[in-house]
């Protein structure tokens, strides 16, 4: 009898943990949605900030985040995929392989603020790129590299070895097999990782604080060497640097809602693709 009572209590405690976690998260997300939805409008999205950030919208920040993410992904995705190809198809178990794997894992664990300092020291100061779109994009590219590598590696290793062997049997070289068989077969998986990384990069704040972001810029970025506004940094700046807290709070919530919707829709797309892939794949 006693045992059953313990079991009841224990399982209720587990249930309580779920309710508590889910409740917490629902509270969090609904509060952002409810407070953000109030300021959302066509004008809020498509116009720039006005009157010392107390009115207007977030268009320059959206554009800045778009360019930062796009450029970062354009740099990190080709390098990351090729690195994964090397690790998967070429590397034999040597010391170099284990060193590179350690490097990738270490990079994945480096705190984002350290990427920010690295970008500032190397791109902004040493290479003289100044605080600019390109410095920020390169910093974000390095940050996203380990994520691209790990996800692409996983996509490549889900391709059946038979495909490669069939390709060799037809007389194709290793390069041809990789480019015509391995990568095309793994492409949906690789695409998922690209989308996932884009979402991750779009939401980063600390790495662009000292490399690309500016609190206020009336104009949209015209060249790679311009400072840009970015949505995550915009939220932070509105909350901490403004002087009109009462008016800037709602704008910050609105920006956060847009950022949240952006990131969540990007990552849901990638999750849906992955889910379909897993269902379809039967080898």
């Amino acid at each position, binding site marked *: 009898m006693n045992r059953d009572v313990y079991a009841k209590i224990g399982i209720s405690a*587990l249930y309580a943990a779920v309710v508590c976690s889910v409740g917490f998260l629902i509270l969090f997300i609904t509060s952002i949605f409810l407070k953000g939805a109030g300021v959302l409008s066509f004008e809020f999205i498509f116009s720039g900030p006005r009157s010392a950030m107390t009115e207007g919208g977030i268009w320059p920040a959206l554009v800045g985040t778009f360019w930062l993410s796009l450029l970062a992904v354009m740099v990190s995705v*080709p390098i990351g995929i090729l690195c994964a190809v090397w690790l998967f198809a070429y590397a034999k178990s040597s010391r170099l392989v284990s060193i590179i794997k350690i490097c990738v894992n270490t*990079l994945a664990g*480096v705190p984002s603020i350290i990427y920010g300092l690295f970008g500032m020291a190397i791109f902004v100061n040493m290479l003289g790129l100044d605080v600019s779109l390109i410095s920020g994009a390169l910093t974000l590219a390095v940050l996203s590299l380990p994520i691209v590598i790990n996800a692409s590696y996983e996509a490549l290793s889900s391709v059946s070895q038979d495909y490669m062997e069939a390709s060799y049997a037809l007389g194709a070289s290793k390069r041809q097999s990789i480019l015509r068989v391995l990568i095309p077969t793994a492409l949906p998986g690789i695409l998922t990782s690209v989308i996932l990384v884009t979402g991750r990069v779009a939401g980063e704040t600390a790495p662009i*604080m000292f490399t690309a972001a500016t609190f206020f810029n009336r104009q949209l970025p015209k060249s790679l060497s311009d400072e840009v506004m970015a949505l995550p940094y915009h939220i932070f700046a509105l909350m901490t640097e403004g002087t009109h807290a009462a008016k800037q709070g709602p704008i910050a919530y609105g920006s956060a809602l847009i950022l949240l919707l952006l990131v969540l829709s990007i990552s849901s797309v990638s999750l849906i693709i992955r889910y379909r892939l897993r269902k379809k794949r039967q080898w």
Partner: protein
Amino acid sequence: MKKLLDTLFYLLTLICAVGTMIALAGIIFSIFYEGLPLFKTVSWRSFLFGTAWYPTHANAEFGIATLIAGSFSVTLGALIIAIPLGLGSAIYISEIAPPRFREICKPVIELLAGIPSVVYGLFGMAFLAPLIRQLFHLESGLNLFTASIILGLMVLPIISSMCEDALSCIPKAIREASFALGANKWETITRVLIPAAKTGVIGAVLMGFGRALGETMVVLMVAGGSAQIPSSIFSSVRPITAAISAEMGETVFRDLHYQSLFALAIVLFIVTFAFSLLSELIGKKK
């Protein structure tokens, strides 16, 4: 021609692979190159153990003990909240809930893990902090307690997802063997499943620790920002990441303050590196 292209392609992939080494080397080089010169002026002993962080005073002092205390106290607080909730919900999802619930939970948890940290920071600053201030009659709601809750909320999906993976890796036969011996569900969970998933759970905790320690935006916005050893759970603290991000904008290129912030980054890098190494070693043992 074909041979040449084959070799060129191989070299291209090799260069990209070596690129990751260069990226890591670049990160290590940049923080050490900019941070180490500090120790020509300030001894490492007074840097690590000094409790006075006055980098902008005329007689500037660079003691980071209070910042280290800030980082560890917030991280500990976050884990105290996230481990029981994360592990508890992972067990519930994988062992008790119907399979359909689990199919829904898994992707939702993954989505939550991708929410930008600045959004958590906003929630902490604009929603939770005023609530905590009223509830406990404090002067300010931006403190260790609030920051721990938000940070805990943030690492909760990560810990829960990793624990769930560890539990679902345990073969079904082990559960059945336990039931066959007459154990009920709770006894199976506590005496069989948790011990079997131990390494995975420890890995999840270490991962959560690293994530919380390195997190910047939440602690910058919510922890309060006073460089002091916390005296209660409602103390205002200044974790390492918050100090770096808040102060870098005020520094002059390569002055002592600038160098000290890079030296802080060295400390942060070494600690997080040690933890990721530790979790990898534990993972390998398995």
